[in-house]
């Protein structure tokens, strides 16, 4: 039987190029006709040169992670072959440039060697067509109707007729070429469900969510892997009456976001670790002056410049504890591309309601990977606006009024006549500087009270879902983009008869304590897998809930595979 659920990996050097785009195009074409896709990409930090690879998992059923290893490896060069061939599954396919790659004998895989570059050069007289040629071969070999690919090529080159022509030729050549090949493998895309799906990256979904939530000011400074949020905002915001600013640095970006929000506009910035480090002084100001705003940190591998194009969940400490002094901030982490919508809208909702900075932790893999996603139900994303001093006498208006829930009405310049000065100094209810011990105590407590109030609305099933066995022995607690791999590992464990469940909170501060406590006390072991060295989330759980978890840490710039997590489950439950 043909297998229409498989993983293709493409590897090559960026000096030649086309690795990422070839994969992206194939994935997009498959998605267009109704397959579910899940992609992953990783590239060097140089603009040209260095090894990049791309992976797409294609299936007729929902996919939650990039999967384990790959079924089909397309090696542009020898280095790619050597690096990835060990990940090829049993009976997997190696498709390679027969002039550039010398595969060693291996009875477990099926090999198709084609002189791609030579064909492009000699037959097509179009060296830059190599990628499209390969695309054609892939379509022919694995059952992708070439029509959709042709559509894409046409759109892309619609203003350059000659190039379009040549690319179509290359595509056709590749497709026809496969008829000469004796197909030995069983990977073949059957008919998909033809349901319309969106193909989006995490950054796309975060941006869309923000726009939906009413964000109308964005300021940012370019940084991988957050730059495309800035770029999308730059092109989109003006269409909806908003403004986007490329700031001179990250401090200016956040400062201007503070200003815009003070002036009544929902506002956001997006950065990665280094930029976030520069923002922590202003983060404290936002919390002190109670300014609603959202900061996206698309984490990359640190410390310092680190591995700027690789993922890591290494900035949780910084999000939770960065900045001087004691001040509340809310920290969120979306668990998938689809979930990025919800969490992005939630970020604005919580920021506006609790008038404090909200940090949304994404990471390089989530920001840049694409997923096919189904219906986006806008109704379940409530849009929230801040409390204003309606009906309050401007003469007696207290901007920082002590209230039970910690939230006080916020006046907007130009709209409200309730003038006040937003202070970085400790202040009384009016906002006037006041350095007495009593006021500092009360104001600090008032500010933190907002987190207690917020906790009540996030400690629930929707924002802290549980998955798996009701009677689990092992409970996995994860955060952020690892959700899909954990879920698939849990599925595998359940199938193997292991009693496992997983919990995956979207809100990391304040923690959904009740649900977490209940979960922890219901299992024998707790496992916290995360992509960092210090076990930052496990540490957070230990400090706040006294949880002594088994830690599973991976660093190095690649996400967890389901298999890695499954192995740990087995180790804990079977071998221990």
């Amino acid at each position, binding site marked *: 039987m043909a297998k229409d659920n498989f993983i293709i990996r493409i590897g090559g050097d960026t000096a030649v190029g086309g690795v990422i785009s070839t994969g992206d195009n194939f994935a997009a074409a498959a998605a267009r006709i109704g397959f579910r896709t899940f992609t992953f990409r990783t590239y060097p930090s140089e603009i040209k040169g260095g090894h990049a690879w791309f992976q797409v998992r294609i299936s007729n059923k929902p996919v939650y992670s990039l999967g384990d290893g790959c079924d089909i490896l397309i090696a542009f060069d020898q280095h790619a072959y050597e690096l990835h061939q060990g990940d090829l599954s049993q009976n997997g396919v190696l498709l390679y440039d027969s002039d550039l790659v010398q595969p060693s004998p291996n009875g477990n895989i099926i090999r198709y060697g084609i002189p791609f570059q030579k064909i492009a050069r000699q037959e097509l007289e179009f060296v830059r067509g190599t990628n499209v040629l390969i695309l054609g071969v892939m379509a022919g070999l694995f059952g992708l109707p070439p029509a959709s690919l042709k559509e894409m090529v046409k759109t892309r080159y619609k203003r350059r007729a000659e190039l379009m022509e040549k690319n179509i030729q290359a595509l056709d050549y590749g497709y026809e070429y496969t008829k000469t090949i004796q197909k030995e493998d069983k990977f073949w895309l059957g008919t998909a469900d033809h349901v319309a799906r969106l193909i989006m990256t995490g950054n796309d979904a975060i941006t869309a969510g923000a726009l*939906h939530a009413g964000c109308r000011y964005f300021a940012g400074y370019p940084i991988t892997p957050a730059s495309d949020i800035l770029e999308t905002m730059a092109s989109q915001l003006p269409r909806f009456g908003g403004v986007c600013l490329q700031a001179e640095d990250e401090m200016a970006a956040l400062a201007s976001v503070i200003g815009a929000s003070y002036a009544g506009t929902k506002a956001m910035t997006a950065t990665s670790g280094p930029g976030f480090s520069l923002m922590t002084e202003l983060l404290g100001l936002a919390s002190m002056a109670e300014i609603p705003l959202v900061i996206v940190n698309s984490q990359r591998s640190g410390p310092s410049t680190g591995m700027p194009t690789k993922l890591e969940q290494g900035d949780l400490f910084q999000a939770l504890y960065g900045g001087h002094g004691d001040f509340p901030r809310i920290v969120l982490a979306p668990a998938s591309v689809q979930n990025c919508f919800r969490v992005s809208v939630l970020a604005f909702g919580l920021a506006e309601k609790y008038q404090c900075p909200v940090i949304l932790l994404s990471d390089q893999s989530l920001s840049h990977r694409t997923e096919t996603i189904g219906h986006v139900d806008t109704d379940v994303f409530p849009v929230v606006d801040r409390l204003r001093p309606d009906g309050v006498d401007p003469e007696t208006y207290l901007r920082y009024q002590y209230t039970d829930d910690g939230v006080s009405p916020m006046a907007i310049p130009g709209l409200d006549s309730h003038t006040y*000065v937003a202070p970085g100094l400790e202040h009384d209810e009016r906002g006037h500087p006041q350095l007495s011990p009593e006021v500092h105590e009360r104001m600090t407590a008032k500010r933190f009270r907002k987190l207690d109030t917020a906790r009540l609305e996030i400690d629930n099933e929707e924002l802290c879902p549980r998955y798996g066995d009701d009677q689990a022995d092992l409970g996995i607690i994860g955060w952020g983009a690892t959700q899909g791999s954990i879920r698939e590992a849990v599925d595998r464990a359940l199938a193997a008869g292991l009693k496992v469940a997983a919990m995956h909170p979207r809100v990391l501060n304040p923690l959904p304590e009740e649900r977490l406590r209940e979960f922890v006390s219901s299992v024998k072991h707790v496992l916290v897998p995360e992509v960092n060295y210090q076990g930052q989330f496990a540490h957070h759980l230990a400090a706040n809930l006294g949880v002594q978890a088994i830690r599973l840490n991976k660093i190095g710039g690649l996400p967890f595979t389901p298999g890695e997590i499954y192995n740990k489950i087995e180790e804990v439950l079977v071998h221990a």
Partner: protein
Amino acid sequence: MPDGAKVARAPGAEVISVKEYKSGDKPIWCPGCGDFGVLSATYKALAALQLQRHEVVVVSGIGCSSRTPYFLSTFGVHGVHGRSLPIATGIKLANPALTILVMGGDGDLMSIGTGHFTHAAARNIDLTCVMMDNQTYGLTKAQSSPTSFLGHKSKSTPYGVVAKPINPVLFALASGASYVARGYSARPNDLADIIAGGIRHPGFAFIHVQSPCAEFFNTYDYYDEHVESLPPDWDAHDLKAAVDLALTEEKRHLGVIYEEERTALSDAVRKFEPDTKQFDLTAYLQRFS
């Protein structure tokens, strides 16, 4: 925003008095501090333009001078050290109808805030930046500042300042400020005119105010001797002349040194897509299908 809007007053509306711009909170400055003069000039400028208190935002960083917002009855932000200009930028871009004043010290704007100064000027953000230059760090008690005299001995430079002092007027011109003026805190009436001019100016207005620190670096005598009005026939639209003056002045000239009409970022960005659409998620998502 059209110039006129800033000074419009509904016909028959009551006149707003200088007093109404005072917050009622007494300034905490030392007796004799130049900042008193700057504050009173600011009150006068606001009254002269009859600006609505709730349509004015005074933004500052940290320093003695940066305490100013608390003494006005307008909106205000007392931010962190050095970041007043980007905060003000965000306010202005979010709501261009507001009148923005940025007030701060030579340390705040020309030491830790240097980069923001240049970029706010280059973008020509429509606001008025009043730098209260006392050539020292008042609030942290008398260290040197980037405008301290060469050779100036202070607690942080006991052997004398070696860095070439920043020339604020030259620096503002080189950064792209479209209105550059100088005032003296001891001449609050003239200063009020200059500030009003800056507010009326549709772009980045920089006002360099010599404002002595009575407590730690009393320069009244020096300024009294060194200030001088600009020549009566001064052409404020000549950038080269303004730069040459800044490069060579032995006296500190008071008045509007340079003025230029240039599109302000706050206006430009509103024109990018003149037809504002309502955001509709379903429609927006089409691009991803």
